[in-house]
């Protein structure tokens, strides 16, 4: 991993509702209105195909809209 994403990208520390904090790639960037404390949601993002041609997805986090 690491060469499969175009820079710049944003890494965030996500505090899960159940308590633990994890690091994740975000779909939003800090220069696009993302701020510390924003509520986030998990999303699946297309991540190419494997050697057998099967499409892969990757879990990232995105800014949640109000009410999500």
């Amino acid at each position: 991993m690491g060469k499969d994403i175009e820079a710049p990208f944003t890494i965030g520390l996500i505090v899960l509702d159940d308590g633990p904090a994890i690091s994740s790639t975000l779909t939003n960037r800090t220069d696009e209105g993302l701020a510390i404390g924003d509520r986030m949601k998990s999303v699946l993002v297309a991540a190419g195909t494997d050697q057998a041609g099967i499409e892969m997805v990757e879990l990232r986090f995105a800014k949640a809209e109000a009410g999500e």
Partner: protein
Amino acid sequence: MKKNLRDMRPVYVVGIGLHRYQRLSETSYVTLGLTAVREALADAALEWRSVESAYTGTVLIGMAASRPMLRHLGATGIPMAQVENASASGSTAFRQACIDVASGLTDVSIAVGVDKPGPFAMAPGKTRMRDLVGSRMVPFTHFALLAQEYMTRYGVSAEQIGMVAVKNHRNGANNPYAQRQKAKTLEEVMAGPAISGSLTRLQCCPIGEGAAAVIVASDDAIAQLGIDRKRAVRVIASVTKTEQIYRGAKNFDAELTRETVEDAYREAGIGPGDLDLMELHDAFTIEELLYVEAMGLCAPGKAAGAIAAGEFDIGGRCAVSASGGLLAMGHPIGPTGAGQIAEITRQLRGEAGVRQQPNARTGLAHMVGVGAVCVAHILQKQA
């Protein structure tokens, strides 16, 4: 019944030695390591044949590093092993040497740390299980995120965090074994180049080459081999733990340190107020703030103020990274933890010269390894 180091035979540090930490050179790891070992033997006034086991903390040299190095001192047939525990390799080698002596397996053991920069081969990348970040986040990015979170939570400025580098470079300037031996102003620290987030180059540790060696011995050995008991420093706690799942939105780096050092305090029968000095894993400036708070030296969010007030300076209530720490003394990986023990021993003996912490009696060494392991040792000068 489960025992800790304090429940077994007393263990003393009786010899320390170092090869200066420095940029990658043509010097072989054998020369680096032997320089440190010979200095430690001379310091203890011991011959190599008195050493009964050897542990070499190393990450980057390669397989079976000990014997090609140590055979030059004599092929005495003693057990030797390499210890790889990421940045905590030297600390873990030291712990293994202490366990040998404390348990009675040996009377004299040595921990050596030696490394030269080279390609890293990280096993977590070979699990074939992708995590959510992977190599998109290198260590300095992780700590830049923690710095940003700390500044936001406590209203601390980037310059206040940068003061850690000013203090530690000031200490490193007085350490002949340090890789960085020049004091730096806050303006120089903050001037960059920027590495990640608010972290600048001088807020990130240099990774070079070097070596450190520590000889530990039992009471019997001290008596029988004529070792100077007045210069022997007792190891009163040795604790290592690995990361768990931490709830309550706590970052694992600080939480792992908190629980490891709490166990070490308990084993030693002391509290944070008893510490006169500490060498900690300040690979990045923000780590010093997080760890001194996690170790109970000050309340959460108060470390920057304590540094500004000089509380962690040499001469302050607890000298933190009197050696210069990883930021200035350097972080050659394998030697770093053993080098911390050497610095604390030198301080507790009162032999640290211009960087001597006055009246130092008790010191703590702390290392983490790739965030997932933590090792803490507490040393104490005997009355």
